[in-house]
């Protein structure tokens, strides 16, 4: 009996003290293994650099300088990580219920486009900026939510593979935006880059006070924390995890699996849609093809590296932002092509995924055995 309980990771002599030590050990495992994997990928990448005749020491020093070393670099990094937190959440939430959604890019584009299109009458009618932003943000989240919600519904009701459908929906979304941006909603004063009408300086969402980073970062971090609480501390989150673990068992228990799937997808789409809102309201000031910048796809990497844990998404997104931010300095100083940074990202991804097999293999991270297990 004790043996079975031990294997399940729930020791029989479960005092509070013991409970705490288990949690600390578990958390330590979740931190130590990714750090080890990062070190391994750094070593592997160093060999790659040496093969190119470049110095790894120079490279990593430039990563630190370009990504984190100066106040400017740090803000550069945070700015670049802001959309990634939101698009990574769009992958992580459905992942908890067992869905692999990779269409965040489409929800971002649709959300951003909806926000920009809806803003036109409000800007023309001189509505108060705060109200305009609020309506734009709600519209973006709603449209993004419906967009990925459709994917969830198709999955549940028709058994359509959500990975494929969400990816294909991305191309439909981009085409819909292009259709309107090059047609009915085109700003005719801008003949060479089809765009919607610009919001104008008064309606641009400013930077967070004292920084050069837009509000998308703060919203992303707050949403990550809220979603972590939702998924880990509420009955809704529990139901999602049960359904993600075994949908049939969850159905047998009377859980509304279909509803849960659609809700998770809508939350995901809303996050990506909000990323689109910030791209429009804080950065581009209009909707055009520049919304298709690949944030939705980078978000997939971030979510997987964070093991679909909303809190872990924050540091991982910042790490990614730092690598991208320093990528330019590396190109300029070391005369390396842009693809070098992609090689580093790819290596890190593969090594981190491989490191998943290490969990539970180190005795030090496991709950102490009660002694009768020999």
């Amino acid at each position: 009996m004790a043996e079975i309980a031990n294997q399940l990771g729930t020791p029989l002599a479960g005092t509070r003290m013991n409970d705490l030590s288990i949690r600390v050990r578990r958390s330590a495992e979740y931190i130590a293994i990714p750090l080890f994997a990062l070190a391994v990928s750094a070593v592997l990448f160093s060999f790659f650099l040496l093969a190119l005749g470049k110095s790894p020491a120079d490279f990593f020093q430039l990563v630190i300088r370009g990504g984190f070393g100066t106040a400017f670099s740090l803000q550069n990094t945070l700015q670049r990580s802001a959309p990634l937190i939101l698009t990574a959440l769009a992958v992580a939430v459905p992942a908890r219920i067992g869905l692999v959604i990779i269409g965040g890019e489409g929800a971002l584009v649709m959300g951003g486009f909806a926000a920009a299109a809806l803003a036109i009458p409000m800007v023309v009618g001189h509505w108060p900026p705060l109200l305009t932003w609020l309506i734009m943000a709600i519209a973006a989240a709603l449209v993004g939510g419906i967009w990925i919600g459709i994917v969830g519904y198709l999955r549940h009701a028709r058994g359509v593979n959500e990975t494929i459908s969400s990816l294909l929906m991305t191309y439909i979304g981009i085409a819909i935006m292009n259709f309107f941006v090059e047609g009915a909603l085109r700003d005719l004063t801008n003949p060479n880059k089809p765009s919607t009408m610009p919001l104008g300086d008064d309606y641009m969402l400013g930077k967070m006070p004292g920084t050069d980073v837009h509000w998308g970062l703060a919203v992303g971090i707050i949403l990550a924390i809220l979603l972590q609480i939702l998924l880990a501390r509420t009955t809704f989150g529990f139901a999602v995890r049960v359904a993600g673990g075994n949908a049939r068992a969850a159905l047998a228990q009377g859980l509304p699996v279909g509803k849960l799937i659609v809700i998770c997808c809508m939350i995901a789409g809303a996050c990506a849609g909000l990323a689109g809102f910030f791209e429009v309201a804080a950065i581009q000031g209009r909707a055009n093809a520049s919304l298709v910048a690949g944030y939705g796809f980078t978000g997939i990497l971030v979510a997987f590296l964070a093991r679909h844990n909303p809190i872990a998404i924050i540091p991982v997104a910042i790490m990614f932002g730092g690598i991208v931010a320093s990528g330019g300095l590396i190109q300029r100083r070391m005369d390396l092509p842009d693809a070098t940074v992609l090689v580093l990202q790819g290596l890190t991804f593969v090594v981190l995924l491989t490191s998943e097999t290490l969990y539970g293999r180190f005795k030090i991270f496991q709950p102490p055995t009660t002694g009768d297990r020999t």
Partner: protein
Amino acid sequence: MGGFLNLNRRHFLQGTAAAAIAGTTGIRLAQAADVTIGIVYVGPRDDYGWNQAHAVAAKALQGVSGVKVVEEENVPETDACAKTMESMINLDGAKIVLGTSFGYYAPFMVDMAKKYPAVQLRHAAPLWTPKDPKNLGSYFGYLNQAHFVDGVAAGLSTKSNKLGFVAAKPIASVLSNINSFLLGAKSTNPNATVQVIFTGDWSLPVREAEATNALVDAGCDVVTCHVDGPKVVIETAEKRGAKTCGHNASQAPLAPKGFITGAEYKWITIYKSYAEDLAGGKALPNMVSGGYEADMVANSPFGAGCTPEGKKAAEAAIAGLKAKKPIYTAGLKDNKGKVVMDKTYDNLDPYLDKMDYLLEGVVGSIT
């Protein structure tokens, strides 16, 4: 255990000291050159197209003494481009930053110009207006003049009199190249027509190949294009046995059999003048533009696909453009029959920048 910790701390101190030294030398290196020029590209520098045309000029600029060039490729038209420019200014000491992609201008380069008034920013499209910051500006070349020359040579190198044009989007600069190519061809071959296919975006290699194949299937024996990277169009046409005219940079190496000539930008003319003005402490112009008359566009060396008559006529056309001979003459109609040229327009006339029609002789529609 204590020994282990000590060793660790010592290593840490050594590491930070080394980093500090390396950091300062990096800055010194950047400041050693008289003028540091930053160039930002939206795609790869070896795309046989738009980006390569700029990269070729950047490389030539590196040979100029007292000039240091820092380059960054694959920078998207998002706040990433603003951050890249800021990084060039803050970390590399760039005195002038050149943004080469259309979407960099507003709001990103306008914001950067306001934030860094001591730095010059120049953008490769005619967007600057006197309302914009004074340390910002535009430069561009009238590539349609070189497309006109392409047409002149193509008109005498075609057998079917059907020329094909693969175009990205129906916007003014693209339409102007199509129309100029047609007028060039008609000037040497009144029976020539140009069939155009729009792919819908700047870089869609699969659709560009399909469009090229469709044009060749429709009987076109010369194909040219206006897309970001003409590589796919030129290679596909060459494989199908059709002749080709290039765009943006030289694609001659891609089509040893069928290459006629190509329309190329000559950015080095502008870049050199910027570097000289900065080194000499002179104020930079806000708007630089021109075509053949200002040595800002060129045609690729004639290839095996060009007939001797075509070459001769093209050279004469180049001489004409250098002497500002107009391309768009009075009475020209669009392909719906409406007269769009009420008079003869100078080659640099702003009226031509607003083109939203295809001329009579072009088979295709912009809607």
